[in-house]
């Protein structure tokens, strides 16, 4: 086959692949739009049963934001710190391999199990009750192994030669980690933390076990207020028999997606600015 013919063929294959990608993206987008339309229609039907007319989302939205902040405050420093220790400092002994595999398995434990642990440890053991703080601690603990796993992957992708070159210039381990390795891995670490955080904020199961309130009369203003969040509120409303509540649940789902998008946007902005700082 001559060179131009081969290039034409490559061109055709590429065009097909691009079309295929477009179709796939279109189907996904259409499904999402349909979901949104269904939810909006349901929400638009409006509350028509007594109590549901007075049911609002302010408390749930505030609770979700509180949980996001608490989870990040716990999981990011602990998780990234542990990942740096495991990848950059700890000698690769048998104990290291054991610890690494335990942490990897913890990242795969279902959230419900963390809920039970949180109930025993934070709600009852530490006497925090079913509060925002207890929920944030539980989600934080649940998120730590995921942050560790994602951050370790980002650190491991930094080429060894970068560390060698920095060490050979007379830098200490910590100078190399802080000035070069963390900077090179920053984008991957922020991305990994975002993914873990977004999943934690969307979780309902562990909070339901701890005892999230489905009926609150005021929005939480401090971590000691009763635990409430959007996912648990949606769950509570879908379980009610009255006619107005499915509509409320649908409306809350749209709000949840919106809040998640907002959190995602904030994290994306952090990532973008980090990316620029690197260059």
């Amino acid at each position, binding site marked *: 086959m001559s060179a131009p013919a081969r290039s034409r063929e490559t061109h055709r294959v590429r065009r097909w692949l691009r079309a295929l990608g477009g179709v796939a993206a279109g189907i996904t987008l259409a499904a999402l739009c349909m979901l949104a339309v269904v939810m909006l229609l349901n929400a638009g039907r409006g509350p028509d049963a007594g109590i549901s007319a007075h049911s609002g989302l302010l408390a749930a939205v505030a609770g979700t934001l509180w949980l996001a902040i608490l989870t990040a405050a716990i999981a990011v420093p602990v998780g990234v710190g542990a990942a740096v220790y495991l990848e950059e400092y700890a*000698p690769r002994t048998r104990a290291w391999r054991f610890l690494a595999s335990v942490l990897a398995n913890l990242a795969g434990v279902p959230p419900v199990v963390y809920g039970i642990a949180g109930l025993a440890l934070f709600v009852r053991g530490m006497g925090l009750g079913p509060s925002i703080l207890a929920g944030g601690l539980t989600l934080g603990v649940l998120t730590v192994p995921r942050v560790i796993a994602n951050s370790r992957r980002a650190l491991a992708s930094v080429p060894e030669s970068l560390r060698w070159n920095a*060490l*050979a*210039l*007379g830098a200490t381990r910590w100078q190399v980690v802080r000035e070069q390795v963390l900077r090179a891995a920053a984008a991957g670490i922020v991305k990994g933390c975002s993914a873990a955080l977004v999943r934690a904020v969307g979780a309902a199961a562990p909070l339901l076990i701890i005892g999230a309130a489905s009926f609150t009369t005021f929005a939480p203003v401090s971590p000691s207020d009763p635990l409430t969040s959007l996912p648990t509120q949606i769950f509570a409303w879908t379980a009610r028999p009255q006619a107005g509540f499915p509509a409320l649940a649908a409306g809350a789902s749209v709000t949840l997606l919106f809040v998640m998008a907002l959190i995602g946007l904030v994290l994306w902005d952090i990532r973008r600015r980090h990316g620029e700082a*690197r260059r």
Partner: protein
Amino acid sequence: MSARDEGTRTAGAEAVPVLSAEGLTVRFGERTALTDVSIEIPRGYTVSIIGPAGSGKTTLLRSFNRMNEVIPGSSQAGTIRFAGRNLHSAAMDPAEVRRRIGMVFEDAALFPGSVFDNLAFGLRARGEEGDLHGIAEAALQAAGLWSEGAEILETRAGDLSAEERRRMCIARTLALKPDVLLVDEPTSTLDPAAASRVESLIHALRDDYTIVFATCDHTQAGRLSDLTAYLDSGRLLEYGPTQTLFTNPRNPRTEFYLTGRLQ
């Protein structure tokens, strides 16, 4: 024949060699990279290390500035001395060792940021508070990267050509004013024209530094070095004045290697 060409045995008798290894054996896990290597690097000389791929050239260079110990599973026997002092004694700070015995790697990773950021890293690491720009300028001039002026400082390291990158990595090391310069494969991955220019740079640096370099290209060893060491499967088979080693090698394997007949 100049004093430089007389070889290590006689030179070693009059002055303490700047670097010396005695019975050096280096292992990485089960694999032995160097076996019982003894060598002396006299001050002011340029020494080349030649030998087939995997013969331990890089390992020998790395053991001179304690860079093997950062590889998990490495172990070492034997003594290395730097100006007469044991390189591994408790009083020796590995960071200080690496500043005094600078190394330019074959895989010279660029740090994120500008050329200035790259040069400033090592200086800041040692707590340098003086004129970082002045030191960086001097180092870049010495490495032949100042021809276009101060603009180079703000250039992103990633935008440099392969030759400029190699020069920047040499400048990064020179900025710390080392006593000894270790260079691993000075001109690998460069096109012939760039390779010959970088070779000229190494040649110019010979007057100011003790240089030890490893190379796969033994003609380069012939052009640049006073003394040549021939490594083969982790053993030092021959070491002496470059001219003698090239024209009249004592070990038959050295001759086979130099004439391209090594099996």
